[in-house]
C-alpha cells in the first residue's frame, strides 16, 4: 500500500506548464518524462533557480565537526560554503565561503579546526561565529568600518534533523521538519538501527560522470535494475555462500514533498542485524545479540523493519540515504545538464565494535563506491542513457511501471513521486515550448 503524504499545504502553488515535460495520466496508467528534461540547458538553468535555490539541501553531518572550531568546507547547491562549530555557542554555523571585503574564499582547507578564519588576500579576520574581528590599518577608513555589517554571511536558513545538517538559500522556505514530511520516520529507522548515535566514517567518495543528475535520482531508488545491471554482484554473493532464493521484494512509498522510499527484503546481509556468509561464522553470535537488543528497545515489529528491511530513500531534491548492505549518504549537484558531481559518505554507529565496523566497511565497498562491484556499472548505465538521448528519434521516457497496482519495490512509483514534485516546482519552466 502506498501511504502518500499530502504534498500540498507546505508548497506555494506554481503556475502550471501548458505542455508539461512530465505527463501523468492515471486514466491510461501512463507516466512519461520528456527527454529534454535531461538534456536542455534552459531546463538546467531553471533547475538552478527554481530547485537548488529553493529547497533544503544537505550540507553535512554534525559528527564531522564534533569540537568547537571544527570545520568542513564543500559546495552546497554548487556554491562554496563552510560549516563550523562555533567556539562561543557550540552551534553549527554555515557561512557563504567568501570574504565580505572583496570576495576571496575564506576557508581554503577541506577540514580542520580553527578559532579564527583569516582571509589571505588582505588579512581580514573572522571568528567561528562569523564576527569580523580584525582589519589591518583600520584607520584608513575615514568614516569607520561597521564591523557588525561586515560579518560573514550566513546561508539564509540552516536547520538540522538528528545530526543531519541542511541549508537553504531561500529565506522563505518552510521549516525543515515540515519539509522532510514522511522522510523523518525513515531517517529515524536508519539512525535508531545504528543505536541512536551515528557518525560519518573517514574517507569520502567524490566522483563525477556525464549524465543528468535526475538519472542518478532514479537509479538510487530503482529496484528494477538490480538483477540485470548488477548480475556480477549477485554472482559474487553466491560465490561467498549467500542464498539468493527469496530475491528482492517489498514496496514503494511516496513520502510527500518529492521524497520517496523503497523498502524491501533482500538476500544480502545487513550489519544491523541480518547475518550472511560474508560476515563469517564467528559473527553470528554478535549479530544475534544486536538483533535481540533491537527487539528489547523497539519491539519485534520495528526491530524486524530495522534489521531485515532495506531502505533506499530520496530526500528531495538531491540527498540519498540508502540503508542497504551498509548505510550510504550521497548528495550530488549538476554543474551542467549532462554532468553530475557526486559526494558520498558511509554512515555508521558511534563506538561500533571493531569487528562489526570491519564488516560494515566490507559490505559497503564491495557493492558501493567507485571501486565497488556495482557503482561503476550504474555510472555506465546512466551515461549510456544520456548518450541514447542524443540519438533522438524517441522523445519520451516511460516511467509507468506499477501504475494501477499497489506499487512494489521494483516498480517506479518512487520515481513518479520525485517527478511530480519536480514538475510542480519547475512550473512553466518545465514546458515543452521552452526546453528545446
Amino acid at each position, binding site marked *: 500500500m502506498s501511504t502518500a503524504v499530502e504534498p500540498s499545504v507546505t508548497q506555494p502553488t506554481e503556475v502550471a506548464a501548458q505542455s508539461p515535460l512530465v505527463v501523468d495520466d492515471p486514466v491510461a496508467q501512463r507516466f512519461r518524462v520528456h527527454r529534454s528534461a535531461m538534456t536542455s540547458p534552459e531546463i538546467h538553468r531553471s533547475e538552478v533557480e527554481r530547485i537548488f535555490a529553493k529547497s533544503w539541501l544537505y550540507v553535512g553531518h554534525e559528527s564531522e565537526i564534533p569540537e568547537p572550531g571544527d570545520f568542513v568546507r564543500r559546495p552546497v547547491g554548487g556554491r562554496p560554503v563552510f560549516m563550523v562549530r562555533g567556539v562561543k555557542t557550540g552551534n553549527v554555523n554555515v557561512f557563504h565561503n567568501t570574504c565580505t571585503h572583496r570576495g576571496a574564499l575564506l576557508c581554503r582547507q577541506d577540514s580542520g579546526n580553527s578559532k579564527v578564519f583569516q582571509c589571505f588576500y588582505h588579512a581580514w579576520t573572522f571568528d567561528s561565529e562569523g564576527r569580523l574581528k580584525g582589519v589591518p590599518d583600520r584607520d584608513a577608513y575615514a568614516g569607520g568600518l561597521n564591523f557588525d555589517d561586515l560579518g560573514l554571511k550566513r546561508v539564509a536558513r540552516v536547520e538540522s534533523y538528528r545530526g543531519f545538517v541542511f541549508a537553504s538559500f531561500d529565506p522563505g522556505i518552510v521549516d525543515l521538519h515540515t519539509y522532510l514530511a514522511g522522510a523523518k520516520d525513515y531517517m529515524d529507522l536508519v539512525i535508531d538501527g545504528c543505536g541512536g548515535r551515528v557518525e560519518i566514517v573517514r*574517507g*569520502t567518495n567524490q566522483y563525477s560522470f556525464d549524465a543528468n543528475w535526475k538519472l542518478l535520482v532514479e537509479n538510487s531508488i530503482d529496484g528494477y535494475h538490480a538483477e540485470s*545491471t548488477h548480475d556480477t554482484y549477485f*554472482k559474487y554473493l553466491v560465490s561467498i555462500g549467500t542464498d539468493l532464493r527469496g530475491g528482492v521484494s517489498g514496496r514503494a512509498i511516496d513520502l510527500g514533498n518529492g521524497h520517496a522510499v523503497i523498502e524491501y527484503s533482500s538476500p544480502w546481509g545487513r550489519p544491523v542485524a541480518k547475518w550472511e556468509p560474508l560476515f563469517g561464522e564467528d559473527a553470528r553470535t554478535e549479530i544475534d545479540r544486536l538483533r535481540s537488543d533491537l527487539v528489547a528497545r523497539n519491539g519485534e515489529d520495528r526491530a524486524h523493519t530495522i534489521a531485515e528491511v532495506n531502505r533506499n530513500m530520496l530526500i528531495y531534491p538531491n540527498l540519498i540515504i540508502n540503508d542497504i548492505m551498509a548505510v550510504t549518504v550521497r548528495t550530488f549537484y549538476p554543474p551542467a545538464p549532462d554532468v553530475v558531481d557526486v559526494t558520498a559518505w558511509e554512515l555508521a554507529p558511534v563506538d561500533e565494535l571493531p569487528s562489526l565496523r570491519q564488516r560494515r*566497511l566490507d559490505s559497503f*565497498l*564491495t557493492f558501493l563506491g*567507485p571501486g565497488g*562491484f556495482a557503482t561503476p556499472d550504474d555510472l555506465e548505465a546512466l551515461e549510456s542513457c544520456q548518450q541514447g538521448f542524443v540519438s533522438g528519434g524517441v522523445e519520451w521516457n516511460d516511467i509507468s511501471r506499477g501504475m494501477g497496482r499497489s506499487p512494489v519495490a521494483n516498480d517506479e512509483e518512487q520515481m513518479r513521486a520525485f517527478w511530480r514534485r519536480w514538475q510542480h516546482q519547475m512550473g512553466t519552466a518545465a514546458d515543452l515550448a521552452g526546453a528545446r
Partner: protein
Amino acid sequence: MTAMAPSKQAIPRQQVEEFLYTEAALLDAWQLGHWLLLFDEDAKYEVPCNDAPDGDPARDLMLIDDNYARLASRVDRLNSRRAHREYPHSRTNHQVFNVRVQDLPADELSVNASFTVWRFRAGRTSCYVGQYHYRLRRSAGGFRIAAKRAELDMTDLRSVGDVAIIL
C-alpha cells in the same frame, strides 16, 4: 683506509623493476588470471579514498579493500561480459617510475614506486596518478606479491569517474 664491512646482499632494484614491468604488462594485456597468480593467498590489494590516502581499512572507508578471495572475484567479474563499465574493456597503460626498494625481515621487500595509469575507452581519456606500496616476498621464481596498495595523488575522482580497472 679500512676495508668496508661486508654488506648485506645487495637490494635487487633491477629485478624488482623487471617484476613490476611484467605485472604492468599483464594488466595492460588484460591477462588478469595470470596477474592474479602473482599474489600469495594471504595477499591484500588496497586503494584508499582520495581524501584519506593513509586510510586504514579496519577503520576508514576505502575505495578498494580486497583480500585474495575478493580480488579473485574482481578478476572473475572483469573477465565476464557483465561488468558493464569494463565491457568492452578500456585500453590501459600502466607506467611505473621512481622505484625504491628496502629490505624487510623474513625475505620480504618493501617497494615504493610512482605510477601513472592511463585509461582510454569510448573516446574518453582518464589518468590515475599516485604511489604504489608493495610488500614482495622472494620466491624461487623471483617475487610474489604479499600486499599492493595504490594511493592516489588526485584530490578526487571527478576527472576519472571510477576505479573499475585495476590500478
